[in-house]
């Protein structure tokens, strides 16, 4: 579904990614693991068009999306739930979710039943249902994180990029987020996941890539990576 070949990207003069290749097959959950500054978020940003790659190719389905503008990439069915809380602070929770379905209102994406999806999103995240009329900016950090995730789902996307969905969440909610990811996977949602809790990410993923200093160091099926001694020591480690 999503294929990256020899991707080079960075900020200004600094190149962060030195030629990475990866694949997210349809209906699969793929996770990207690595330490801080390895290039996980940069990869996500390059895919969704927030930064322009200097080299390489990114395709979504049959479309070449390399270096295209974010809104065009989104209309082709790529939803990005970004790192940090980027919700529309002065709009209500419901309006934030509706904006997630913007491309469906305009006809750029198949319309389907938006109202039903809205209810489904609220059912996934009961906290959002309680606060549906509240302004997003007044939500707690964790609630904003959930809203960003739910908003991404509202597009009915081909591929979802989830960047650190559990960041800043209470342990009880972290658990909840992973349960939701597992449920989405069962429903056949295609996902690329970046997570601080690498072990938990490998538990819900089909396949994993380990990113080191802007290069793919190891990749393989999730359960295999989970038991790889080198990966275990470096990223899953009992701290």
């Amino acid at each position, binding site marked *: 579904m999503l294929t990256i070949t020899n991707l080079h990207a960075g900020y200004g*003069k600094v190149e962060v990614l030195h030629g990475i290749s990866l694949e997210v097959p349809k209906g699969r959950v793929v996770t990207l693991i690595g330490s801080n500054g390895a290039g996980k978020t940069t990869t996500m940003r390059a895919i969704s068009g927030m930064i322009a790659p200097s080299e390489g190719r990114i395709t979504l389905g049959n479309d070449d999306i390399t270096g295209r503008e974010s809104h065009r990439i989104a209309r082709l069915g790529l939803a990005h739930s970004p790192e940090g809380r980027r919700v529309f602070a002065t709009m209500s929770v419901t309006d934030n979710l509706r904006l997630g379905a913007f491309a469906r209102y305009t006809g750029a994406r198949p319309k389907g039943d938006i109202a039903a999806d809205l209810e489904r999103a609220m059912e996934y995240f009961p906290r959002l249902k309680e606060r549906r009329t509240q302004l997003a900016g007044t939500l*707690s950090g964790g609630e904003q994180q959930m809203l960003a995730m739910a908003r991404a789902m509202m597009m009915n996307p081909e591929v979802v990029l989830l960047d650190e969905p559990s960041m800043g969440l209470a342990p009880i909610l972290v658990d909840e987020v992973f349960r939701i990811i597992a449920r989405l996977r069962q429903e056949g949602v295609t996902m690329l996941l970046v997570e601080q809790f690498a072990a938990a990410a490998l538990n819900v993923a089909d396949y994993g890539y380990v990113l080191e200093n802007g290069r793919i160091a190891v990749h393989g099926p999730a359960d295999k990576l989970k038991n790889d001694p080198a990966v275990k020591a470096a990223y*899953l480690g009992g701290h």
Partner: protein
Amino acid sequence: MNRSPIAANAWRSLAVLGVVALALFPFAVGNSYYTHLVETILIYAIVLFGLDIVVGYTGQVSLGHAGLFGIGAYTAGVLVLKLSAPIWVALPAAIAVSALFGALLALPALRVTGPYLAMVTLAFGTIIQILINEMTFLTEGPMGIKVSKPELFGHRLDETEFFWLVGVMLIASLVFVHRVLRSQLGRAFEALRGSPVAADCMGVSVYRYKVYAFVISAGLAGLAGALYAYSEQYISPNTYNFELTVMFLLAIIMGGRKTRTGAILGAAIIVMLPKLLDDIDLFRWVSVAFAVLATIGAAALLARGKSTLKNVAIPVAGSIALAALSFTLTTMADWRLSIFGLITLFVVYFLQDGIVGFVRGALSVEGRARTGAEPAREVEVVAPQEAVVRAQGAATPQLLAADKVLMQFGGLKALNEVDLRVKRGTIHGLIGPNGSGKSTMMNVLTGIYVPTAGSIEFEGRSVVGRSSSDIALSGIARTFQNVQLFGEMTALQNVMVGLHHTYRSHLLDIALHTARYRRERDQSTARARALLEVVGLAELAGEQARNLPYGKQRLLEIARALALDPQLLLLDEPAAGLTAPDIKELIAIIQKIRAQGITVILIEHHMDVVMSICDMVTVLDFGQKIAEGVPSAVQSNPKVIEAYLGGDVAVEALA
């Protein structure tokens, strides 16, 4: 990152060459018209140096600078007219009076920003113009004032000599502004733009430094205004109108903000362009030259792979079209304004970093301000272990005592009568579900919110009602849940903003680079480097904060907070987004901080971090304290498990 001696020498020779060229200019052209034209450019450049402080550095908009310029001109004019004041009285008086009005103009900037501020400053400029017009008893009203060239040491300056005087003033202003902007003041101005909240919490009062920026800026406008009065030898109210103020702003945008070269270039453009558009032959030549430059620039960008054909096609085609158009025109008169508008639109739209920014980008030349490196004259080096200043012990074991703190937002009680007591030298964990009031507590402790009720005592002194910067200076430093760095500043400069409190030197010290200022600057640079080393960011000192990965940004916030020499450090989710190995490093850093006797309040969702380093843990839920005790007791508390930990599954399975 330090400039090589060769580059420094090259710059110095270039500067000397520039000064010589400027001095010889009147002889070279031998035409007083052109001398006067360049003189006007130099005078405008002084205004723009000042305006750039407000617009480029603090990120405020001002449409009032023509008014300030007018105040300077009229202060000099009136003093000469009424009192026959000599120039050495008129210039300082113009600076002082304009600076005073600058402080006045800063008042609205403290309350409103963006378009609102633009409107208010615009009104200010208009009122000044009207006042000059109406106060006939002082200003002679619409009649204007005649001012002859000044006398210096009993000798009346001629055109050329006055040109030199303006040249000297320009260089003095340039050096002054350059020094101010590279000092702690300049960093404070930039910090305001980057994140006002963080600036306040670093002890840099947003209130005070906004006023400061406007005052310095206005002083320069006043100086320029006075020089303008002498230069034109006649002043009248309608010079200082809306058009001039827009021109000033346009010059900053076209030249490029945050650069002195850009200000001079911008001044040249706004003075020359209208003249240029009067003369069809000249216009033809310049538009051809411009088209050639645009094509070369685009080719350079393409060759370096910095842009795509699609992106450069329109500007190149536009500049060529303009050149072609210039040859089809027979007269300029009808087209002047349209072409002026087109050129402006073009620059603003395509060269958003201004001309200087564009050239730098095309040639990959990084401005000094951008690399942000302090020059290589660090006489001293601070060892990392000495970078974190030891907290002073005191008789009382209790550092912080919050009693029945109530924080109400409308009907919502974000904090409902919470008590919090923190012992000196401990790490106190603050945990709880999302939305339980932890971050609100941080904001109350640091003065961002004033609690609805309750008392907070830090070191036996009440915190309630004091400003954030005051609280910060009394020893409470913090990091932010949503990282609040000064994005355009380098990692090193971010930490140096935290060291702002170590400076005692004032504006005069900075302008003259006195021994005191140089010593403080070297000390704080060395300390900032050492602090970066403490958090493991030494190698990224010259990198802009916004380009750092998220986890490193969090560490930079810790280094910046430590620069305040705090007694109490509040860490808001420092481990968020960190993977296992990064968390180990973070724990080591927090332990180092405690070893220096600094008390820490830690908000964190990573239970392994909380459990391994906290001495005491307080748990909040729905704004109320539901548990408190040593980590192991809290962890097994059924209420905490139910509200927060969610049984044993969550923590163990995910850690």
